[in-house]
């Protein structure tokens, strides 16, 4: 297959700096975009059917279209590049930016032109220190050649921890120097975002697709996908696989390809049991689903989510109940506390899972867990709680015997 997003990423992941990037055709998409009107660019992005790679899969062109009414009273306009990559198991944006920072910066410049923004913020998690250093140098390089700084400013904002800062409106609050709590929508950020001004928030991988779409067209981009969605995708795998990592594959590749063709299969002594396809906030893909295309549309058809496309593998020696307990600990700790079902419900779920895992579960606990999980998900402002209960509900559906065995045996069958 043709490498698009990773064509400049060399093994060892040393960054491609500006001379090498330009020599390989870099910034020609920006030159082409500057010759186009914002409406023309947005139309191409809409035609390409590019969907948000942060996990939600919202059409990028539609997000940009909301930015089109241009009122001088509503300035400055903002682009926020979401580089707060904190979904468990997910490291694709770091992989892209640390290998090819200018692809990302070129994308920012094109998006800034298309959405007519005055200031582009790269909102990056504090722990990505190397990415910050690489981006600082790359932004300075791009400024020195006039790609950045003309017509818009590009600023790096390092956050200070907390998963919620990666939620679209939580990110905007974080940027404003407030706790990263979600906002009620509407108004959507495109109308009233950062400091009440029109704001578009896009994920790093999503933006990185844009220069290629501009350069080679919407139809070409659509032809890259193997199943229903367009483009290529950075997929990955972690857990007990032989070669954990991230790889660019056609959108719609399968879990079987991920695990056995790219991650080298399972480590010796471990069997594949299931995998969360895109971070913690997704349903398990079990052995019977290994050939389902991992794209937004195909996953929607089976009432599951693609998420970030970075798989977390559950092996046969790892207890699914304990794994859920670990994930609920994450979500309970990272809940911002704004909505009661999430703030109170997630620690309660974590506690009940701990009881079950440690052999203190009682008859009826698993159904109670399921009831609570199904109640919490839809009753909050943002999708954190929904993400939290998704793997749990899925685990109970797929590994019910494991939950029941903990209760009947009054111990974890995977221990000792």
């Amino acid at each position: 297959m043709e490498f698009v997003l990773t064509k400049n990423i060399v093994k060892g992941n040393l960054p491609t700096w500006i001379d090498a990037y330009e020599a390989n055709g870099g910034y020609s998409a920006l030159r082409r975009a500057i010759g186009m009107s914002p409406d023309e660019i947005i139309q191409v992005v809409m035609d390409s059917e590019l969907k948000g790679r942060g996990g939600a899969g919202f059409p990028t062109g539609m997000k940009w279209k909301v930015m089109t009414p241009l009122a001088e009273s509503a300035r400055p306009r903002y682009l926020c590049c979401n580089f707060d990559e904190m979904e468990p198991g997910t490291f694709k944006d770091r992989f892209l930016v640390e290998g090819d920072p200018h692809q990302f910066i070129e994308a920012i410049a094109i998006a800034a032109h298309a959405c007519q923004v005055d200031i582009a913020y790269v909102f990056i998690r504090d722990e990505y220190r190397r990415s910050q250093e690489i981006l600082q140098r790359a932004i300075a390089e791009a400024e020195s050649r006039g790609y950045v700084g003309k017509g818009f400013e590009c600023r790096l904002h390092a956050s200070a921890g907390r998963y919620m800062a990666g939620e679209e409106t939580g990110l905007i609050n974080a940027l404003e120097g407030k706790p990263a709590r979600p906002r009620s929508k509407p108004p959507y950020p495109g109308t009233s975002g950062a400091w009440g001004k029109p704001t578009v928030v896009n994920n790093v991988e999503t933006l990185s697709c844009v220069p290629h779409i501009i350069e080679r067209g919407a139809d070409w981009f659509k032809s890259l996908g193997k199943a229903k969605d367009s483009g290529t995708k950075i997929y990955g795998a972690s857990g007990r696989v032989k070669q954990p990592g991230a790889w660019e594959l056609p959108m719609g590749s399968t879990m079987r390809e991920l695990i056995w063709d790219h991650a080298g299969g399972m480590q010796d002594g471990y069997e594949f049991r299931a995998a969360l396809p895109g971070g913690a906030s997704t349903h398990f893909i079990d052995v019977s689903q290994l050939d389902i295309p991992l794209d937004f549309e195909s996953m929607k058809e089976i009432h599951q989510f693609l998420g970030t496309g970075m798989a977390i593998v559950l092996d046969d020696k790892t207890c699914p109940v304990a794994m859920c307990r670990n994930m609920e600990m994450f979500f309970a700790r990272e809940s911002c506390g704004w909505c009661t079902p999430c703030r109170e419900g997630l620690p309660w779920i974590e506690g009940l899972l701990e009881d079950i895992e440690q052999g203190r579960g009682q008859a009826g606990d698993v159904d109670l867990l399921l009831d609570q999980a199904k109640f919490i998900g839809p009753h909050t402002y943002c999708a954190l709680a929904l993400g939290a209960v998704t793997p749990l509900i899925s685990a109970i559906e797929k590994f019910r015997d494991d939950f029941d065995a903990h209760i009947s045996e009054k111990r974890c069958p995977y221990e000792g």
Partner: protein
Amino acid sequence: MLKEVPTRQAGSVDALKIIQKHRGWVSDEALDDLSAVLGLSRADLESVATFYSLIFRKPVGRHVILVCDSVSCWIMGCLPRSVGEEQVMDRLQRKLGIQPGETTEDGVFTLLPTVCLGHCEQAPVMMLDGEIIGNLTDEKIDQILAEKRES
């Protein structure tokens, strides 16, 4: 720094980080001073300082160890899981003689759990003074602790 942000409030996280860089943590007095400098209420600043996990409102040691305890690292052995197997967090606790959230008596190390550090291909992973250390083994942990204790 304040010239680059649209409002004074927007500078609060960066300002807290500057304090922390120089003093290691953010004390009540520092928060009072910052409140006066930025013209923000003490309550607003406190809500930000206590919300973000990498702003420390208690004194920390010279070296801060953040151990990822999210799911990929958990699968690969970051937390106590099965009987008779020492995992990353156990070993650090035993070697340092402290629990997560505590600082060693000599003030050298603080041990904290943290969420996914985004380096899951190198699980289990920890961050020490801003540096990512992955593919952790018993020997690697012992060696790093010894190096840092001497420095």
